[in-house]
């Protein structure tokens, strides 16, 4: 049986991708951002998931205004990086997992989530930046990635509750897949930012920190948060954070927060990142205490 072992959330700021592509990660401004992912890369290398499900949004790259699917699940064998106007990012082609993806599609549609199945799609920085942050810049991505594109560009995006429930349906689908696969789910985007109109540049660290706290300990407090509150408090584009709730819904109600990072800014955006693990049922008490002690050190 396949299972979801952990969830990762991360911002997907395009300038982070540009900093990687232009070899500027050692500059003080960017080092501040990238240093927050050093531990995460080690965690990822040790966790070695068999598959990643990456919840992200497209930014007028694969989808224009001609077609605006609320949830689009990538079932293809591969997803080339999109040309976002400066040529495609020099990152590996994202290899999918068509068998698991189509199994998920079939399962969640019968669970009443009428998502769109995509068999041909290019992926933009929304997907590839988080892959870089968690995997670095390898020649090939170390595991297959199933993209789940969520419309957060045209209002209204799906509600936080809908996203959370889709996460639960995805978990059910994964757990009914016969092969033993260890799956990590990503929720990307955010945190607070507004890049449009006279209010552009808005950042709300207080909101972001409360969001991270609740995501970890009290997700029920977030699932009914109205879109208006996201936009008012975290900026018009901060509404992307509903995607983190797909990730959260796919995890246990109670999780172990193993890592968190937050910094302002990366260009126009507050960068937030969290790693949540499903508690291992077999884990001994001593192991858990040790993990908690480690966590205290990591959370600076």
């Amino acid at each position, binding site marked *: 049986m396949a299972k979801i072992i952990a969830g990762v959330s991360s911002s997907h700021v395009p300038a982070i991708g540009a900093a990687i592509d232009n070899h500027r990660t050692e500059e003080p401004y960017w080092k501040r951002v990238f240093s927050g992912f050093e531990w995460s890369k080690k965690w990822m290398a040790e966790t070695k998931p068999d598959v990643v499900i990456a919840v992200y949004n497209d930014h007028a790259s694969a989808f224009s205004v001609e077609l605006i699917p609320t949830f689009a699940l990538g079932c293809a064998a591969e997803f080339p990086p999109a040309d976002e106007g400066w040529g495609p990012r020099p990152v590996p082609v994202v290899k999918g997992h068509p068998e698991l993806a189509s199994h998920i599609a079939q399962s969640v549609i019968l669970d009443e989530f009428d998502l769109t199945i995509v068999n041909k799609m290019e992926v933009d920085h929304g997907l590839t930046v988080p892959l870089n942050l968690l995997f670095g810049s390898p020649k090939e991505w170390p595991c297959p990635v199933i993209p789940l594109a969520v419309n957060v560009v*045209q209002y209204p995006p799906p509600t936080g509750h809908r996203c959370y429930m889709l996460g639960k349906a995805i978990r059910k689908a994964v757990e009914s897949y016969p092969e033993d696969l260890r799956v990590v789910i990503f929720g990307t985007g955010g945190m607070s930012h507004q890049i449009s*109109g006279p209010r552009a540049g808005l*950042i709300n660290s207080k909101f972001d920190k*409360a969001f991270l706290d609740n995501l970890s300990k009290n997700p029920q407090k977030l699932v009914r948060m109205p879109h208006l509150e996201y936009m008012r408090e975290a900026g018009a584009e901060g509404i992307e954070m509903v995607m983190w709730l797909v990730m959260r819904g796919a995890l246990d109600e109670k999780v172990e927060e193993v890592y968190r990072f937050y910094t302002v800014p990366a260009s*126009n955006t507050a960068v937030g990142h969290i790693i949540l693990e499903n508690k291992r049922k077999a884990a001994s008490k001593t192991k858990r205490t040790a993990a908690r002690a480690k966590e205290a050190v990591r959370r600076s």
Partner: protein
Amino acid sequence: MRREQHDYDDIPGTFVFDAERSRQGYGINMFCMSLMKDANRKAFKANEAEYLKKFPLTPEQRDAILNRQYNRMLELGGNIYFTAKLGATDGHSFQHLAALMTGSTQEAYAKMMLEGGRSVEGNRSRTGKGAPKAKAKSKTGKKSGSKRG
């Protein structure tokens, strides 16, 4: 026809890209999307007004594009991820557009971001009506209504 009013229209300095704006701004956004191709970028730069004839645009939308009025484009149905492609075609960084939209200089905008960004205090609500409601639901809601400079 007057725009239908929504709760989010109370957020200051914000044009939410909703279904109505998306419908009205289809031509703006499809024009911007066409700029993903180099040949189109060149054709546009060679004769902007002529190139724009290929898209269904109102005279107001056409003028906003030709005059690079980025807030006006958003108001008339453009979406920032699309209009940013016009900025890129002009060779501008996103920060240049952000400075234009916020009525700031690029230097001042960059400085504001480095100092932690624009505060939400005083930037939650046009009318002040939205704030008490937000306060009841979240602990972050505070008095608002005055616009921050």
